[in-house]
């Protein structure tokens, strides 16, 4: 009995706090974290430009080709993390999509249909994740996607064993190497999708429901939000974007192996968190995450320009991730990202 009472008390306090925050926070919050990110991005661009003669004009746009594939997954991962969930199977999903697309094409399927198949596989993988996460609430999504991560990658290995597959038609390379005017096609595609995802999150009822669910799933359920359905949609979207990532990644490399996109999940999560999305759920926004994509991307690119080795880059990215969370915890006085029970 007393346990119930204390539980009630706690949820009430939490509710009060989140209502207060919603009233006070938005402007302050928009003016802080995102501007800091913009400042970091500008600094990185200036430093890049001053250390290398190759970082001029259109080259700045061309550089995006190197990291846009991860950017697509970031868009959907924002939704997943806003729910307070996580999906670590996306790298494996992308690998499976890519492998199935290549095998289907080489088995005589037209390339256009293979592209659709690639997206469909991603959609299916995400849907399975969503169903499992929604139906088995007792298991954290981290564990479920840990299992499906092994399974999806396992299927990719069963299909292609240790072979590589490729031989795509020339026009397929357009996806990641083509231009529309001076703008790389992949960047344009990313901007279009970013706008769509941004509108979906910030201007649609669905997006508001995601925030509500991330703040308090139980109250959301009782206020009539179809919690399970939304969760399944979000995870399916995540799978679909992993499929999109697979398209661009495969196009960039012109061939595929079962071990592509290994560790992508961690990079993507790092970008989302750097963008100010709290892993406890319910806090964060799309512009921040998009800025983080460019920060991490340009940082990697710039470090590459001045011949910083990939190893040091790993260290820098890791420190950046931790530093950004520490900064948001202590300097900016944002609500602390406490572990979720």
């Amino acid at each position, binding site marked *: 009995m007393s346990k119930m009472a204390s539980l009630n008390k*706690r949820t009430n306090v939490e509710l009060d706090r989140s209502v207060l925050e919603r009233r006070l926070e938005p402007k302050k919050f928009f003016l802080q974290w995102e501007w800091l990110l913009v400042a970091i991005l500008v600094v990185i661009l200036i430093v890049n430009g001053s250390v290398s003669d190759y970082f001029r004009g259109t080259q700045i746009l061309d550089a995006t080709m190197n990291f846009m594939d991860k950017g697509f997954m970031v868009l959907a991962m924002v939704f997943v993390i806003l729910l307070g969930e*996580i999906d670590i199977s996306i790298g494996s999903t992308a690998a499976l999509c890519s492998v199935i697309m290549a095998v289907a094409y080489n088995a005589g399927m037209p390339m256009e249909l293979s592209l659709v198949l690639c997206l469909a596989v991603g959609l299916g993988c995400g849907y399975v994740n969503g169903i*499992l996460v929604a139906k*088995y609430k*007792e*298991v*954290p999504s*981290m*564990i*479920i996607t*840990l*299992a*499906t*991560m*092994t*399974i999806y*990658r*396992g*299927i990719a*290995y*069963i299909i292609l*064993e*240790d072979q590589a597959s490729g031989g795509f038609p020339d026009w397929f390379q357009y996806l990641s190497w083509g231009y529309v005017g001076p703008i790389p096609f992949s960047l344009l595609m990313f901007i279009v999708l970013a706008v769509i995802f941004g509108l979906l999150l910030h201007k649609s009822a669905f997006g508001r429901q995601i925030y509500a669910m991330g703040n308090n799933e139980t109250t959301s359920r009782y206020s009539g939000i179809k919690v399970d359905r939304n969760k399944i949609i979000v995870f399916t979207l995540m799978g679909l974007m992993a499929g999109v990532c697979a398209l661009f990644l495969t196009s960039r490399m012109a061939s595929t192996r079962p071990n592509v996109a*290994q560790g992508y999940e*961690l990079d993507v*999560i*790092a970008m989302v*968190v750097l963008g100010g999305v709290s*892993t*406890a759920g319910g806090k964060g926004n799309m512009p921040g995450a998009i800025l983080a994509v460019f920060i991490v991307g340009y940082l990697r690119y710039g470090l590459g320009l001045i011949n910083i*080795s*990939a*190893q*040091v*880059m*790993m*260290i820098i*990215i*890791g*420190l*950046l*991730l*931790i530093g950004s*969370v*520490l900064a948001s*915890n202590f300097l900016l006085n944002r609500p*602390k*990202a*406490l*572990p*979720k*029970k």
Partner: protein
Amino acid sequence: MKASANTLEKNKTKKTFRELGLLVFLIVLCVIFQAINPTFFTWENLADMLRNTSILAILAVGMMMVMVTGGIDLSVGAIVALAGMVSALTVQYVPQLPAFIAILIGMGVGLGCGAVNGVLVAKGRIIPIIATLGMMNVFRGLTYLISGSKWVSAHQMSDGFKSIATGGIGPINTLIIIAVIVVLIFYYFLNYNRTGRYIYAVGSNPESAVITGIKKDRILIMSYTLLGLLAGLAGVLWVSKFASAQGDTATGYEMNVIAACVLGGVSVSGGTGKVGGLLLGVLLLGVLQNALPLINVSTFWEDFIQGIIILVAILLNISVKRRADKNALKRREI
């Protein structure tokens, strides 16, 4: 009072039931493997299997402790690599170094790494998955950096260092002995030591743990540090066993460790997890890894089969628990 004692008893039977289920599953699996390939149940093969599983067992015990606090550590694979690399490099430059000092060096490195994780989680208030994800990159990068992306291979290591993993007392391999000692120490620590019990208290209800006067931050830092220590030990054993230290040693191994914990009934939300169950989880993974090649399953199928078994085990566990809860609800007098 009486009611609570009753539920306590019921919980106890439920948990033993769960472990029993896992044990039966394991035995059935072994019987099937034995029926397909009779060399499975030979002394050599079993010893081989235990030897290969011992490093996993050492890491899993530490991971369980961290998961009991409600945390997780994604950086264990990277700590294994870093500690292994540091000790291997030391041995390369000082070949006459006694083996146990190499082990101590590796454990020291692991201790430091774990302490950093612990401080970030407890004092920095970064949620564990993000903190250890970041440190994973840092540790892995450091491993490449100090080795200059080169390997330390067998001929650069002293015989004494390599014999850590090949030697043994009587017929029993050193790795198995070390794993057994570690498991026994932690069994005692987690069940019969006051500080060990505090870990469970912090994990099952952090607020009341703090109110009771438990220094939560200290317990958290200790858990991560101890896991780091074990990962350091595992790193030296790993390098000694494979007689090579590489930058990409144990990449992704944290997922195996977490899978073993989850199979063994350790809850990711904290507060639950027993050494007995954990060992069954570790053995299950070990048996799978050992027996699948024996029954002529292609290596390319291993990931898939392992993933399916983990998923099925988790979902079965939940279904059984749900049914048990439903029955308990039915029996309750209102």
